[in-house]
């Protein structure tokens, strides 16, 4: 009777059918048409306001046609398009900084957060330091970072790293302290040592929070990277946006912004996917309980 597990039915073969069913369902719902309407209104207004009606403040803005035209042109007027190697060089420069900062933030933040959550003594003495530094916006560190590291590149990396590190450590700590006391007790009851409890209960139990932290982490990394590159960069998408302004090649500003949004979105989507893969139990909990 009630012992039939609801999720134990064959998975792989039903997955394709499920995707197809979902697709059919969503095409019958109004959502995709409304979304299309929304984009049409947005882009339509942009085009009309800048090029056709030439509304007062909009006149100075790059037009939709100019941006898209340049972006997909083999011979862009303003120097940057899908076909120029510089475009990818800038993306790579930004991406590399973010990935480096993110990797370092994860490597340091997760263990630190675990220690905060796991050891009250460590938390009592070290957490206040952490809390005092945290309200200072990452970007306020730029000048000091330049002084400390004698160079713009490492200071851009530093301010990209810093907020990512805070987000990761904090969420990991929250994850550890969110673990239900009875799991810890159950583990001890069943004879687990402190280390085994840590490995089998604390780490997996904190995992959902850690991945939330990683998502926030990569978001804030992009957030401050842009500012860092504008202030002190010599490469990267933030730099593209900034020079687009100073060199009055306005369409590249928008190309830079859109690219930034895309790359940022993809990077956090990848983390979400990895998280889901690693925490199937969690995804299924959510799926079943609503």
């Amino acid at each position, binding site marked *: 009777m009630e012992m039939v597990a609801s999720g134990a039915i064959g998975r792989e073969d039903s997955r394709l059918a499920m995707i197809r069913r979902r697709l059919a369902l969503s095409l019958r719902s*109004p*959502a995709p*048409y*409304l*979304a299309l*309407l*929304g984009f049409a209104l947005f882009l339509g207004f942009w085009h009309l306001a800048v090029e056709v009606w030439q509304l007062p*403040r909009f006149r*100075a*803005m790059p037009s939709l046609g100019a941006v898209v035209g340049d972006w997909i042109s083999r011979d862009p007027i303003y120097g940057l398009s899908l076909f120029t190697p510089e475009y990818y060089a800038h993306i790579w420069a930004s991406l590399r900084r973010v990935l480096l900062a993110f990797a370092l933030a994860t490597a340091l933040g997760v263990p630190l957060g675990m220690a905060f959550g796991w050891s009250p003594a460590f938390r*009592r*003495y*070290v957490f*206040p*330091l952490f809390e*005092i*530094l945290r*309200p*200072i*916006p*990452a*970007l*306020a*560190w*730029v*000048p*000091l970072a*330049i*002084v*400390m590291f004698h160079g713009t590149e490492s200071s851009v990396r530093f301010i990209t790293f810093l907020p990512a590190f*805070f*987000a990761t450590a*904090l969420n990991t700590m*929250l994850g550890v*302290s969110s673990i239900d006391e009875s799991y810890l007790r159950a583990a001890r009851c069943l004879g687990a040592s402190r280390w085994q409890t840590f490995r089998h209960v604390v780490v997996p139990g904190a995992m959902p929070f850690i991945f939330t*932290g990683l998502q*926030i982490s990569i978001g804030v990394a992009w*957030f*401050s*990277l*842009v*500012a860092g590159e*504008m*202030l002190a960069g010599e490469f990267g998408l*933030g730099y593209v*946006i*900034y020079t*687009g*302004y*100073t060199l009055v090649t*306005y369409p590249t*500003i*928008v190309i*830079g*912004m*859109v690219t*930034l*949004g*895309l790359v*940022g979105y993809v990077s956090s989507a990848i983390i979400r996917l990895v998280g889901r893969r690693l925490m199937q139990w969690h995804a299924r909990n959510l799926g079943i309980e609503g």
Partner: protein
Amino acid sequence: MAVTATLAAKGHGRGSDLVGAGLSIGSVLILWEVMAAADLTAGVPAPTAVLAAWWNLLFDGGYWQSWYLSAFRVAAGFFAALVLGVLLGLAMVVSRTLYGITFPIFEVLRPIPPLAWVPAAIIFWPTTELSIAFITFLGAFYTIVINTLDGGRAIDQRYVQAALSMGASRMNVFRRIVLPGTLPSVTTGAAVGMGITWEVVVAAEMISGGGSSMGGSGGGTGGGLGFLIWNSYTGGSYEQIIVGMLSIGIAGYLSSGLLRRFGQWATPWIGRR
């Protein structure tokens, strides 16, 4: 940034915690002082030097002017974001059509960091002041909309049904169920958004006021704590950089704390941990 709110809700601050905090912070300050004396801090000035510089600044009208300018920008951007964000969020809760049209665009624009809008904002808005306010607005706006939307959608349908069964009209349901039901997550979103606005305002001030060719107006109207930091950097006064950083930290901490207090006061039915 979204973490700030969740954590600060956790109460601490008992006696032994204060002792621990004092010990750890004190020892780091001493270590820093010693290292600075031995010239091991890569040019970062010693705590005592920073304190001395801060003391001097306390009597400097320009310092307080910077506080005022930054706070004013934050307030302007933040309240605009609060009003428009809550309105849009609620409208998206109430109308599925509006949600269907707006939300996808919203999701496409959201990954673009607010600071990437700085040049576009400067081109669009007639004054630097307005463009900084716009960027600040953008920083808080997304968070507030998303929180309002999530809060509104998470309202238990049984409350609505209960209200309807007691004879409430649609307007009643909106006023007495949807509004208060959304309030807790609005206050959370606002506190998080406030944190972001300080972050953004600093950068916007540094980029537009402090950056080489932008804004143009330089010292006078540029102002603000972010500008103070940048100016101290270009002027070689490293103590003042740290004073500026700490000032912004304090400002952000105070305003978020104030907002959170206000949120607790406005939602007394939410259990305190």
